[in-house]
Each structure stands twice: as C-alpha cells, then as structure tokens.
C-alpha cells in the first residue's frame, strides 16, 4: 500500500488544494489522511457529477483540486465530463476505484461496471493509468503531465489495497 500521507503531500506539492467526491472503501485510509491534511481541503459531495462541477468551478477561480470516486460514479459523470470539463478544456484529476475485479467476486453490484470500466474511459476519450505501489510517483507524474499539456480530464484507477488496506 502507498503511504497515503506521502501521497497527499505529493499532490499538495503539485498544487492541489481541494478534494471532493463520493467515498469508496478502497480509499478509506486516504480519507483518514485527508481529514488530517492541512494543505488539502475536503468537501463531501452528494453525487459524483456535483464533484466534477465543484472542481471545475474551483479551477475557473484559479486553483486546482481533484476528485475521488468509485467506478460506479463513472456512469454518473458522463455529462459533467463531456459538456463541462472536456467542452471547456478544464484539467481534472480523477481517482477512481477499480471495483468489480477478483476481490469483488462477492459483490455482484460491481461486476458489470468492473467489466466495462476501461471501455467507458476509452469511450469518453479519457486517458487513464492504473496506480500501483511501485513507481506510483512516475505514474502520477505521467498522468499530471498529460492533464496539464492537454488541459483535459485524466483518470487514475485504484485497485484494492493500493490507497487503503
């Protein structure tokens, strides 16, 4: 597992000062660290598309934030991505839990979205990376470079055990 305090410090150093989204248990430890963080403010959202709106508004005011959501939320944010973030070219970093893989065999509610998660991201034309404990900084630097160069949303998929025990 990645040290979540180090992970958030890295994001803070990269200029992120706000987080919002809808929790997933895959991010449980990340949320504990977020609550402690003095550099990154967290606002709970009621829906994932609302969280996209908050981060886009925050960006229009000149600051950067990131999103945390479960992959179920990828189904909710379609219009927020296509007719806001992508249409206005707003850079958006999304951490999306990759539910519905082997560890979720007993959670049928995640299985269909687990099967189509990468297809959905490809259909939305959103570049994505799968975060691993090894070389996580490299992965993040690549994702952030693409986000900044394109001024568009990017997605970092997070499997079980990577950002929470």
């Amino acid at each position, binding site marked *: 597992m990645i040290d979540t305090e180090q992970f958030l410090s890295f994001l803070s150093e990269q200029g992120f000062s706000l987080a919002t989204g809808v929790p997933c248990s895959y991010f449980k430890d990340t949320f504990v660290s977020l609550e402690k963080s003095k550099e990154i403010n967290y606002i709970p959202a009621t829906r994932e598309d609302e969280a*996209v*709106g908050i981060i886009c508004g*925050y960006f229009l005011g*000149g600051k950067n934030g990131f999103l945390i959501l479960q992959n179920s939320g990828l189904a909710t944010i379609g219009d927020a991505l296509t*007719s806001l973030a992508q*249409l206005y070219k707003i850079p958006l970093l999304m951490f999306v839990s990759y539910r519905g893989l082997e560890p979720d065999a007993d959670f049928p509610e995640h299985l269909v979205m687990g099967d189509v998660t990468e297809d959905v991201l490809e259909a939305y034309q959103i570049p994505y990376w799968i975060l691993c404990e090894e070389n996580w900084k490299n992965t993040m630097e690549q994702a952030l470079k693409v986000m900044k160069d394109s001024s568009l949303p990017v997605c970092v998929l997070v499997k079980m055990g990577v950002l929470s025990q």
Partner: protein
Amino acid sequence: MKGAEVIQKLNEYLTGEELIVSSNGNVSRQAYNFLPQPQVYLRGSMGLPVSIGLGLAISQPKKKVIVITGDGNFLMGLSSVTTVGFAKQNNLRILIIDNESYATTGCQETVSSALNYGEMVKGMGIESVMSIDLTKEKEMTSDLLDQFVNKEELQVLHIRVEIDDINLENIPWHPIEIKENFQNR
C-alpha cells in the same frame, strides 16, 4: 415580471466585480446579453451551476459569486444545494428564476409548482432565503436585489416569474473562449 426582466434589474445592483455562473439555455444567454462580461456561461452540464458556483466561491473567497439558474436546472442538481448548506460559503448567492418550465426546450412543465422553496432551502441548511412571486406582484421591493448582492452571507433568492417572450441567439463564444475570457478578466 418575466425572467429576463429580473436579470436586467439585477444588473442595476452589480458593481462589475461579481463572478456570475449562469445555467445553460435561456438563462446564460440572458446573462451574456444583459450583465457585465465576461462570466461563466454554461452551455451544457445541466444541474451543475450550483456546484460550479460553490467551487468558484471557495476558490475566490474575496469575490461575490452569484449563480443564476432556471428552476429545471436547479431541480436537477438539487442535492448540490445541500452541499452548499453544508459548506456555508458566505460569498455565494443563488438566484433561482422560476418559470415552472423548461423554457429553452419549448416550455414543457417542470415539477417546480409542487415546491415551497423557502422551507425547502432552509431545511437544507441555508438560513437566508427569500421567495417572491412576481406573477402576482408587479414590482420587486427595491431593497431585495440590493440585499441579495451586497449582504455578506450565503443567500438564496427564489423568484417566481412569467415565461419570457424574447428569444436570444446562442452565445457566440466557444466554451473554450468562455473559459479563457473569464480566466483573463
């Protein structure tokens, strides 16, 4: 009174420093035509003007942020209003122009007429709420918009209006231009 007339009236109380987020369709076209430019004019993302306004208000705490939204748009993003009640961002104001219809798409009915906006919004944790019906009263009291713009607290102003009889052209700026013009203001 009609929605466009409320937006024109609002203009009399603005200093030009306010940051305004307007909902997609007629409301953003009216904001583009009748209020100081440039602002955040939404073309899509129905249901999100309140959350965009919240993010902007957190980002720019010294500026007043005014969200102008139609009733259909407001209702689609209703749960985002609860987040506003939670976040209690004092520099944020929400103006709901309520004509009880999806006017941009041909005046189909919304569910707005079932609601008591004052009680609903107060119940969401926003204490300063005003609700007036301008289909019955012809004029607004003069201090209503003044207070809405200038009082230093989180506010919601709900105004029931008649459906507009003007048709404005689409905003000529591409959304990327809308963003860039706003960033460079």
